[in-house]
């Protein structure tokens, strides 16, 4: 039951849709195992969407496909109102288009300081040669300070990324994502390993980001957190959409209870 009822059949590249992100019939198999099975959905500009689903449902794989890490066997992935075919681009190009990602397993630059981690992520010049002579601007400095405020790692800024605890790395990675200032944020399990209070803060943060016009897709198993987000929820199962709607609607779904929430 894909949301975009008007999905085109393959190939044409004119403006297909108003959607910011558009997936249609995406299938991914690993050695015969179908991780994604004709997955279709869209994300509108400015929308925030929560994705839930059993372990192994394909949520992370979905993000891999969107960010160019995994190539789909079949199906279309378009960005920016259908103007850009993501399956033809590599990770860097997709990132440059304005799709940022936080990984399920927090990945930060281990031998850089927390500060440098943010500096590297900060939106701006990406060309190799130009970066040799790059100078940090006052604006950039301010922006970094702002982010530090948000992620509460100010006192850790001089430490090496690799020496942070698991939860601190989660925060740092969120900070890096903020620094990138992407149009679309893909956030994979941001609150894993956070305390309940931090979880609430993260929800607040994401809402804020969303309010500032960024689209967000967030994967999480923490129902409290999903509830705090208060957005449309989509439940994946065995590589396709099982249910979609508000959290209450989705969590009332019999199948969702059966395969995911448990009784």
């Amino acid at each position: 039951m894909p949301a975009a009822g008007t999905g085109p059949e393959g190939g044409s590249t004119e403006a297909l849709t108003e959607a910011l992100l558009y997936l249609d019939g995406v299938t991914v198999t690993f050695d015969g195992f179908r991780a994604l099975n004709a997955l279709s959905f869209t994300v509108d500009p400015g929308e925030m969407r929560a994705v839930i689903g059993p372990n192994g449902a394909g949520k992370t794989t979905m993000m891999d496909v969107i960010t160019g890490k995994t190539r789909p066997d079949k199906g279309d992935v378009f960005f920016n109102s259908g103007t850009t075919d993501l399956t033809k681009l590599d990770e860097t190009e997709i990132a440059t288009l304005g799709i940022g990602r936080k990984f399920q397993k927090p990945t930060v630059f281990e031998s850089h300081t927390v500060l440098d981690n943010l500096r590297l992520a900060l939106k701006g010049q990406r060309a190799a040669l130009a970066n040799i002579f790059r100078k940090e601007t006052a604006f950039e400095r301010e922006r970094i300070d702002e982010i530090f405020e948000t992620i509460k790692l100010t006192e850790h800024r001089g430490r090496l990324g690799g020496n942070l605890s698991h939860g601190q790395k989660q925060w740092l990675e969120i900070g890096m994502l903020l620094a990138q200032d992407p149009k679309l944020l893909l956030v994979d399990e941001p609150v894993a390993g956070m305390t309940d209070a931090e979880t609430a803060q993260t929800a607040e943060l994401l809402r804020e980001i969303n309010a500032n016009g960024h689209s967000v897709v967030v994967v999480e198993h923490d129902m409290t957190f999903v509830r705090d987000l208060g957005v449309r929820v989509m439940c994946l199962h065995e590589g396709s959409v099982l249910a979609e709607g508000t959290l209450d609607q989705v969590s009332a779904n019999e199948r969702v209870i059966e395969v995911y929430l448990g009784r």
Partner: protein
Amino acid sequence: MNTTDTRPPALLGTSGLIFVGILVAAAILVPVLNLLTSPDTALHVPTYVVSLLGKYLCYALLALSVDLIWGYVGILSLGQGAFFALGGYAMGMYLMRQIGTRGVYGDPVLPDFMVFLNWKELPWFWYGFDMFPFAAVMVVLAPGALALVFGWFAFRSRVTGVYLSIITQAMTFALLLAFFRNDMGFGGNNGLTDFKDILGFNIQADGTRAALFALSALALILGYVLCRFLVRSHFGKVLIAIRDAETRVRFTGYRAENYKLVAFVASAMLAGVAGALYVPQVGIINPSEFSPANSIEIIVWVAVGGRGTLVGAALGAVLVNYAKTYFTSGILAPYWLFMLGGLFVAVTLFLPKGIIGTFYEWRDRRNPPPDEAGEPIAEPRPAE
């Protein structure tokens, strides 16, 4: 609120200043003590020491070039010797052409080895090498071009880790075999030798040797400052990030392959310069410079000195080569491999981050750096 350091961090740290200081002093003192003191005085630096030191400095520059890509980008090139050798050959070809009619066969154009293998004319790729500027350009261009082509393919295909290491080794091995072939027109196994003069100066004159030494020191200083500048720039930070988490870098929007390529080419050019300075001081360039074992040795120098520390790489090169010079003479000569091998094992066991790396660690432990991101830390971390 000023939590971010606003001062531009100093280009050279304390150890960098000491390093450059020592080199400047050496660049002045060694030639002076060699040329202006009488051989009997205690201060006199004999000419053979000058050439020896000059050779070490070339090796140090070479080690620096390896550290740039290994220490900071995680590219373990087992073929760095190839770039060194190409630079060396470019210089060697110039020196060869300067011999003119002074070769044993007295041929004004053809080098001796071509005459006795019955070559009738100079192969096209030797054209231009009679002009120093052309040769000087080739010194950086030849290794740079090879690195560009090789790196362009390899980095785009995302060849990484040991796979990259082994194909760089295959590259230098292939070049070794190719340059061994007499048909290649580079003098085969004997290589290029018996040089007479450089830019009109007798290559064996003490003054020329002293000048070459000073030039090597200068090249090392410039190379060091350049590397230091590179790794401390935003560019350099991306390099380190690539070393630690290449995928993450791509997802952040950086073209990792371009960064690697720039670093790789720069490193190859540095190696080429090192090779070019090395050849006139050593007096021979031959294909054994391409041998994979040579390239591995360069890695070993860097590891001994301390990977990812630049100064350490240079220091490692000088120390290991001094050890080699020292151990291969005298009563120890038959056992020098035990000494050198033992040294390598001991360094890994007792100075796991290399000499300089361990020193830095000790210094930081005694005197922890401020919790501030002033001093960038390219702390060598294991690649995994």
